[in-house]
C-alpha cells in the first residue's frame, strides 16, 4: 500500500499543480449553482449532482490539455473511483443516521435489560432483552455448526480436494450460497417437524436454518483466503519436513487468519439479521427463554419486524432494536479485528 501511493515515473510532460483539483471543484460547484439559478432555483442535492458531473468533465479536459491523454485517463479514473465511494456512502450514512437517530428515542439501559412481558398497546416501556438472548442463542448455534464445517470444507477444497468430489463440492457450495433464506427456514422447519412432531418449536430450529445459510458463506470466504496463501510458503514448510496437517494449521491458516476472521464475521453478519427463516421457525415470544431446545424464542430481527408491523409506539422499539443489532455486530467486529491483529504474522501488510 504505502509503496504504491506516490507513483513517481519519469515524466516528460508538464503536471498540474497540487491545488488544481480543488480549484476545478470550486469552479464546478459555482457553475452548478449558476445553472441551478437559471432553472428552478438551487437545491443542495442538485448543486452537488451537477457540480460532480462538471468536475469530472472539466478536470479531464484540463488534464488532457496540460498533461496529455494518459494522465487525463488516470485523473478520470481517480475521479470516478472517488465518486463511486461517495455515492455509495450516501445511502449507507443515511441508513446509519436514521437507525441511530430513530433508535435513540427508545434506546436505553432499560431497553436492553427488560423484555416485553406485559407490554401491550401504546405502552412505551419494554425492551429487547429476550430478543438479544434469542439472537445470541440462534446465531451461536448456527456458528457452532457452520464455522468448523465451513473451515474444514474449505481446507478440504484447497489442500486435499482433487478430482470429481472436490469439483462437485465446490460447485454445490456455490449453489448453497444461493439458497434463499426462506427456503432454508422451510427446510429446518420440516426437518424438526419430522423428527420431533408439529408442536416442537425451539431456538435450535432457527440455528439449523441459519447454519444452512452460513456454512457456504464461511466456505467461500475461507477458501478464497486460503487460495491467496502463496504456494511458496507451503513448499518451504514441506521442505523443512513439517507434516501436511501441521503445515495447514501453523502456516496456511496462520497466514490467512485475518482474512478468515473477516470471512467468518461477514458470515455471522450475513445471518444475524435474517428475518424470514426465523419468522417461520422460532416465532416470537414476549419473555426470555433460557432453553435453546424448548419453546419459542424471540430474536432481534423478528422483534424488529413485529414491532414495526404493530406500528405506533412499537415502531420506536423497532428502531431501537435495529440499533441494538448493529451495536452487537460492531462489538463482534471489534473482537474479530483484535483477534486478527493478535494472530496474524507480523510483517504482512
Amino acid at each position, binding site marked *: 500500500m504505502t509503496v504504491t501511493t506516490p507513483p513517481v515515473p519519469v515524466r516528460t510532460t508538464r503536471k498540474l499543480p497540487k491545488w488544481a483539483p480543488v480549484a476545478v471543484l470550486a469552479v464546478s460547484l459555482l457553475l452548478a449553482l449558476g445553472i441551478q439559478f437559471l432553472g428552478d432555483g438551487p437545491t443542495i442535492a442538485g448543486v452537488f449532482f451537477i457540480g460532480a458531473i462538471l468536475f469530472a468533465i472539466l478536470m479531464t479536459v484540463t488534464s488532457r490539455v496540460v498533461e496529455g491523454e494518459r494522465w487525463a485517463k488516470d485523473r478520470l479514473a481517480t475521479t470516478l473511483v472517488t465518486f463511486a465511494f461517495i455515492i455509495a456512502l450516501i445511502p449507507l450514512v443515511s441508513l446509519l443516521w436514521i437507525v441511530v437517530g430513530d433508535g435513540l428515542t427508545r434506546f436505553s439501559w432499560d431497553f436492553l435489560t427488560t423484555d416485553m*412481558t*406485559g*407490554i*401491550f*398497546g*401504546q405502552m412505551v416501556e419494554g425492551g429487547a432483552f429476550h430478543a438479544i438472548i434469542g439472537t445470541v442463542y440462534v446465531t451461536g448455534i448456527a456458528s457452532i455448526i457452520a464455522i468448523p464445517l465451513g473451515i474444514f470444507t474449505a481446507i478440504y477444497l484447497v489442500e486435499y480436494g482433487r478430482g470429481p468430489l472436490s469439483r462437485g463440492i465446490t460447485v454445490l457450495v456455490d449453489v448453497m450460497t444461493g439458497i434463499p433464506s426462506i427456503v432454508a427456514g422451510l427446510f429446518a422447519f420440516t426437518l424438526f417437524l419430522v423428527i420431533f412432531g*408439529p*408442536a416442537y*418449536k425451539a431456538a435450535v430450529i432457527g440455528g439449523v436454518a441459519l447454519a444452512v445459510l452460513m456454512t457456504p458463506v464461511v466456505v467461500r470466504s475461507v477458501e478464497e483466503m486460503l487460495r491467496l496463501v502463496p504456494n511458496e510458503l507451503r513448499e518451504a514448510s514441506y521442505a523443512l519436513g513439517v507434516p501436511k496437517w501441521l503445515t495447514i494449521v501453523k502456516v496456511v491458516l496462520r497466514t490467512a487468519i485475518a482474512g478468515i476472521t473477516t470471512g467468518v464475521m461477514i458470515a455471522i453478519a450475513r445471518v444475524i439479521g435474517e428475518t424470514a427463516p426465523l419468522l417461520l421457525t422460532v*416465532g*416470537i*415470544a*414476549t*419473555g426470555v427463554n433460557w432453553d435453546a431446545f424448548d419453546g*419459542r424464542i424471540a430474536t432481534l430481527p423478528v422483534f424488529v419486524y*413485529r414491532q*414495526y*408491523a*404493530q*406500528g*405506533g409506539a412499537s415502531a420506536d422499539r423497532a428502531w431501537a432494536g435495529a440499533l441494538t443489532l448493529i451495536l452487537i455486530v460492531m462489538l463482534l467486529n471489534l473482537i474479530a479485528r483484535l483477534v486478527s491483529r493478535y494472530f496474524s504474522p507480523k510483517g504482512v501488510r
Partner: protein
Amino acid sequence: MKLAPSRRLAGISVISALALTLAACGGGDGDDTSTDGDTGGDNGGGATSDLSGSIAGSGASSQENAVGGWIAGFTEANPGVTVSYDPTGSGTGREQFLNGTVLFAGSDAAMSEEELASGVDRCYGGEVIELPLYVSPIAVIYNLPSVEAENINMDPATIAGVFAGEITNWNDPAIADANPDVELPDLPIVPVNRSDESGTTENFTEYLTATAADVWTHGPVETWPISGTQSGAQTSGMIDTVSGAEGTIGYADASRAGDLGTVAVGVGEEYVPFSPEAAAQILDVSPAAADATDLRLTIDLARDTTEAGTYPIVLVSYSIACSVYETEEDAANVAAYLTYVASPEGQDRAAQPDVAGSAPISDDLRERVTAALDQITVAG
C-alpha cells in the same frame, strides 16, 4: 408420570374448579360460572388464582394488539399462567391449532367443514369452539393533506367504484355530490390494497360485494384481484403506502388510521364515520351463520344494513378452542383465559384506543360465549 407436588396441588384445585363449574352449569346460571372460570380455583383463596401452566396460541395478526392487552390483564389475575400468542396469520393459526401445535387460535375466518371434521380428532372427540370475541372496524383511509374536513362522505357504490378503478379523480361528481361542503382537489385517486392474503381484504370485499355488487364484480376475495395497483404487505405496509403519496386511498384496521383521513360510509340515508360503538351495533343486527351451533357462534354479518348509526365495514375475528382438552391444566387455563377475554373487563381493555380500538361485544353475546366456554372439559 410423576407430578411435582405443586403441580399435583394445582391439578386438584383445577379439578375442584371444574366440578364447581359443572355444578353451576347444571343449575343453569351462566353468569356465576363465568366468575368461577375467570378466577379459576376460588377455593385456593386470595385475589389471584392458583391456575398454573402455559398455553400457546397463534393465528390472526389482526388480533395481535388486543391479545397483548388480554394477556397482560389475564396474567395480572392469574400470575401462574403463561399465555403466548404468535401472530402467524389466520390460516397458519387454524392449521397449528388442528395439528396440536397450539391450544387456541385466532382466525379472521370461520373454519371450513373439512377443518371442523379434522377438529374432532384434535379435540379428543370433542368439538371446535368458535367465538367472535374480536370485532374491529375497518377504516377507509385516505391521504389528502389539502382537505381539512374530518371525514369525506362516500356511498358504497362510490367506494366500490374507487377501488375497482372506475372513479379515478378526487373531484369526480360521485364524490363531490356527497361532500357539498368539502373542496376536493383535482388529483388522481391512487387506490391501495393489501398485497398479502388478509382477513381485512376479505371483509372489505365482502362489504363491497354485499352493497355494490354491480360495481364491484370480483366478489369477496382474500387476495386482491386487480393487477397494476399500489399495495402493501401487512397493515403497516398499507399505512406506509397510503402515507407515501398524496391522493391515495386504502383500508386498514381503524386503530391504525392515525393522522390519515377516514371515510364516512353511506348507510341508508346518512354517512357514518367509524367508531367502536357504531361497529359493535352490526353484531346486534346480524343473524347467526347457517351452520352455527351453541359452541360455534359464527355470524353472518349484515353488511348491507340500513340501520341508522351502524358502521358496516368490520372485521370479526374468532377465538378458536376445543371443547375437550387432554389435561385438566390445559382445559382450565384455556377456559379461564377465554372467559377473561369475553368478560366486560377484557372487552373494555381491547376497546381502548391505545390498545386495539375494537368494538366490545354485547351482553347477550357474552352470555352465549360463557355458556359455550362452560362446555370445555377434559378427555377421558
